């Protein structure tokens, strides 16, 4: 029986406030908490609450990841969601994936900082759910052998990443493989994942409308042991609004899977029941973002690199309770100038209007911190 391995990533950054040069030395609130609250509340209503309730009702085992900084904000603004998460895990045997607590870019820069973040994430999830979770997924699926080597220092068994075109030209993403350090590696099946997350409500798509029978047929005809459907949690109810029929689709999909000889499993369950098909080594950083599927969504242009270099140089003097939140990948993502199709995705997520505005805000904040804590050096 083929396994559907569904993984949903939930994350929200602590967005930076609109910070003008004139605010330097005067204002101290770097975070746009009013906006963050509004977004957390909206997405909870549109997506987290209805989706978790549905998953709980069907007791369907899947793998979730809620970033540490999302959980912090949920406790503050919408504590019903963490409660619901607990209920879901109890009902279904679902799994929580481990990641960098601050959903940061630390993994490609500073292994020590990165390890601390992952440990913090492991600890907090163990504390809440009273379980050792051993599936690791880095910020936005950023991955290479180097990252595998770093997480080898932790008690990790499985890692998730993107099935990029160059990888799947050699390795069918519907099998499990081993990393050089012996972890099980799962590759996202991006075509079947994006059929739901990007194309579900697209009327221009020649497969529109997508019904569960058709979709399950595709899955059942796709050769291999596992179908790795990795996507944003917010696909359900936020990116694809309830009016699109996404919840009816999800229900029918879960309910009818068995008729197609398909079974839902968490990443860890799949790893325990299926034998890996050999080793995969990935030298360059890959990710699941944008068309190039590399680091360019965050560090692709001079503005993004400038911010990252300055931020790195200020590590020692900015207080950690601020610094941690500045490394979150989203702040860099907003500064992407992208290629044409991607720029529409970036502007959908951009709360500042433009990449340039996002840069100026972030840069002004760094200037303020530099003057305030780093003696202007």
């Amino acid at each position, binding site marked *: 029986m083929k396994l559907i391995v569904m993984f949903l990533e939930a994350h929200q950054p602590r967005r930076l406030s609109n910070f*003008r*040069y*004139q605010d330097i030395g005067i204002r101290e609130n770097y975070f746009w908490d009013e906006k963050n609250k509004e977004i957390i509340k909206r997405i909870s209503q549109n997506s987290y609450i209805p989706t978790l309730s549905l998953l709980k009702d069907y007791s369907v085992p899947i793998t979730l990841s809620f970033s540490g900084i999302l959980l912090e904000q949920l406790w503050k603004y919408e504590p019903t969601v963490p409660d619901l998460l607990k209920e879901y895990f109890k009902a279904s045997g679902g799994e929580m994936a481990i990641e960098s607590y601050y959903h940061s870019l630390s993994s490609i820069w500073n292994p020590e900082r990165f390890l601390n973040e992952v440990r913090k994430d492991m600890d907090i999830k163990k504390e809440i759910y009273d379980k050792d979770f051993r599936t690791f997924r880095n910020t936005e699926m950023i991955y290479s052998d180097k990252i595998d080597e770093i997480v080898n220092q932790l008690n990790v068994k499985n890692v998730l990443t993107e099935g990029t075109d160059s990888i799947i030209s050699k390795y069918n993403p519907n099998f499990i493989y081993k990393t050089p350090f012996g972890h099980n590696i799962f590759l996202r099946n991006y075509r079947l994942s994006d059929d739901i997350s990007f194309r579900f409500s697209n009327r221009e798509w020649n497969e529109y409308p997508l019904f569960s029978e058709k979709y399950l047929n595709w899955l059942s005809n796709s050769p291999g042991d596992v179908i790795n459907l990795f996507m944003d949690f917010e696909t359900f109810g936020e990116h694809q609004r309830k009016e699109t029929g996404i919840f009816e689709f999800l229900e029918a999909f879960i309910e009818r899977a068995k008729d197609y000889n398909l079974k839902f499993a968490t990443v860890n369950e799949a790893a325990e029941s299926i034998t890996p098909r050999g080793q995969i080594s990935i030298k360059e950083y890959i990710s699941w973002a944008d068309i190039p599927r590399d680091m360019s969504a965050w560090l692709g*242009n*001079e*503005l993004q690199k*400038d911010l990252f270099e300055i931020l790195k140089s200020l590590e020692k003097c900015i207080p950690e309770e601020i610094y941690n939140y500045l490394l979150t990948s989203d702040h860099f993502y907003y500064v992407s*100038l992208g290629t044409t199709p991607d*720029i529409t995705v970036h502007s959908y997520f951009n709360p500042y209007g*433009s990449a*340039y*505005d996002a*840069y*100026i805000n972030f*840069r*002004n904040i760094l*200037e303020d911190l530099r003057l305030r804590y780093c003696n202007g050096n």
Partner: protein
Amino acid sequence: MGVLGWELPPFFAGGLGIHTLNLFSILGKIIDITLYIPKFTDKDIHYNFKVKMVNYDPVGSPYERNKEFYQKVMDYNEILINEFDKDHDIIHMHDWITVPAGIKLKEKYRKKLVFTVHSTEYDRSGWFYPQERILKIEKEGMMAADRIIAVSHYTKKIISEKFSINPAKVTVIHNGVKSSLFSSFNKNYDLKNKVLYFGRVTPQKGSKFFIEAAYKVNKYIPSAEFIVAGEGDQLNEIKNFSKSLGLENTVNFYGFVSESESVRLYLDSDVFILPAVSEPFGMTVIESLSVGTPAIISKTTGVGEALNNVLKADFWDTDKIANYIIAVLKYRKLRETLGNFGKLEASRFSWENTALKTLEVYNSL
């Protein structure tokens, strides 16, 4: 094709004249064009299209806002009707200053009528006491025209919302830029500490907001120079305003600047500012970007709708404009990126494109 014009370089080169020369130089190679224009010289100047000079002395610019000018326009239109060659298939008029003749000629000879709106009275007045009689002429021209060409979606919106014209009749065609003139330079992004305003000094162009922004930037970067290049009705008022804010050593007035000098000015400035209250297109923005100089423009500047790599603010929000200016001056990477990407984006604007789209409008009639 009979084109009713007003001005033509080298004699008086306003935006309308530049548009007329560039567009019809290209179209003149494809179709038969006769441009009617007030007689401005006895010299024989060669153009790529026929020019018929109407024996009449214009004295003044369509941007002037006085009584005498209005009467002169009416006189010119009367003469135009008599001079017009009835064999043209299409009449193409440009702005209100050629509308009365265009309407009469359409009625008289039953020709098709095209109306290009480069600006409306709302724009030219900065939405401050627009002249009713001119609004009326503009509306009549829009009603009579078979097709209207607007220089931006911003202007199309004014045409449909303020003049109650069916938007289906309006085609948006952006202006071009004489790319060879501006894009052949390699901009260097070392700090020059210069902020440029280049354009007529009028309420429409928002020069007052430029001075306000200068005042706000000056507190943080006292060494930055603010240049006002251009003349206009409001020049004295703006000079006094600048003085009253104590900016004698910060804001410098350069007066009239020729096209070739303007290239130098763009190159030598860190950033170009156009805080227009209402600017149908804004050719200077494209010129500045073509040179590689970043631009900060108002949201009410038409060309902004086709540009991602400029900074946009409300014209009145001088705190935000000041924040942008400081950022561009302080952060080199921002200057470089806005400049390089802006240049790339500006290269998409060409008079060839404008001409092709205009031809499509003619062919649709």
